[in-house]
């Protein structure tokens, strides 16, 4: 597997420029030695795929599986809204020391241990799922912390 990072400077990130850059690298590696090209699925890369397929017909263009799965259904408001709400709740409980300490006390009373709230990562959706799970685990303790009047 060959990976290269290059800073483009002032030249424009057009499909033609990207395809020319990739073709140059492919030629330096030996065109017949390269059998596949993996990238994300943005429109520019689709044009690059077409251009490279024309020059190197044996080469396979592979869309990044993680990108494809990641972008499947997350943008729907019914899905995005609760996840965003979860993210904001995490920020609140993690970044305010007084509510955080009361929540930890409530967690200790309810579950006998402190349940850590995981930080959701905005780009990797599986971490959002993990973070949501940890928030739901501590729902009772959160309600108790709020009823205690900590957040007034």
């Amino acid at each position, binding site marked *: *597997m060959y*990976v290269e*990072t*290059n*800073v*483009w*400077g*002032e030249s424009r990130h057009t499909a033609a420029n990207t395809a020319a850059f990739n073709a140059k690298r492919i030629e330096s590696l030996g065109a*017949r030695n390269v*059998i596949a090209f*993996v*990238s*994300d*699925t943005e429109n520019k890369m689709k044009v690059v795929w077409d251009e490279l397929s024309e020059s190197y017909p*044996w080469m*396979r263009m*592979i*869309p*990044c*599986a*993680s*990108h*494809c*799965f*990641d*972008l*499947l*259904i*997350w943008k*729907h408001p*019914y*899905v995005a*809204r*609760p996840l965003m*709400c*979860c993210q*904001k*709740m995490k*920020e*609140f*409980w993690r*970044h*305010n020391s007084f*509510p955080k300490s009361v929540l930890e006390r409530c967690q200790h009373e309810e579950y006998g241990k402190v349940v850590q709230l995981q930080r959701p990562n905005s780009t*990797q*959706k*599986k971490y959002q*799922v*993990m973070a*949501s*799970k940890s*928030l*739901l685990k501590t*729902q009772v303790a*959160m*309600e108790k*912390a*709020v009823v205690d009047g900590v*957040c*007034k």
Partner: protein
Amino acid sequence: MRSKQKTPATATREVKDDTNCEQLAVVLKLLQPQAASVDVGQTDGCGLGRVRHSFFMLLEHFNSFAYSAAADPAQLKQHVLQAPASRKAYYLRPVPMLSFLLDPRYVRRTMQMSPTVLACAMVLLKFMVASHDVKSALSNEIYENESYLPANFWKDISHNIMTKYTSFRARKRGALKLPISWAEATAADPNSWRRTWGDSVPHLQYVSVKIMRLPTKFGAGERSFSNAASIQTKMRSRMSYATFHKLL
């Protein structure tokens, strides 16, 4: 910079509002297999076939999901069922399909596969073996260029490749006849499976190994982008491109 945080009053209101947690629980149930699929795309070493498998498992999950619990079920269901259809063009490309067909883990699975998609995968199989034969002929150093190759040069691997493929799928060749070779535990790791049992279909094994080794993800590139964002910040915007390139 930290994003705008909730005030205690807003947080209290949202904790007290049960619908938030109910919606989150439904969304979580819906998305958990998808998160697992993202994981497959990121970690599996011989994963193109597995990516295709995960996609179909995901479709099954979306189709059988209990949408009635959702607040706006019709719209959500419509969206969830439409989204994979719009991305099908990526998952059903010939490479993942062929990888799926050559993966010993999924030989017994019967999953919907249209004749067109199957035909494309077979065309790719033939194309890959033909390409290997061209490369072998050129490596003999008799011919300098692809254009000098005679039309009837010996195609070692291409010869009878479809018969070998059929034997593999039908499990009717050499050691592949043994039930133990297809046991779930034996086929769990396709790479070691090929080393142990793949000798019965050696030419097909060549293509399988090649296609199984194809990367499934663009993670390394994304990590570079992430590093670049940490290096070139608002406070270091005057850095030259040459220095930036060296730091990356």
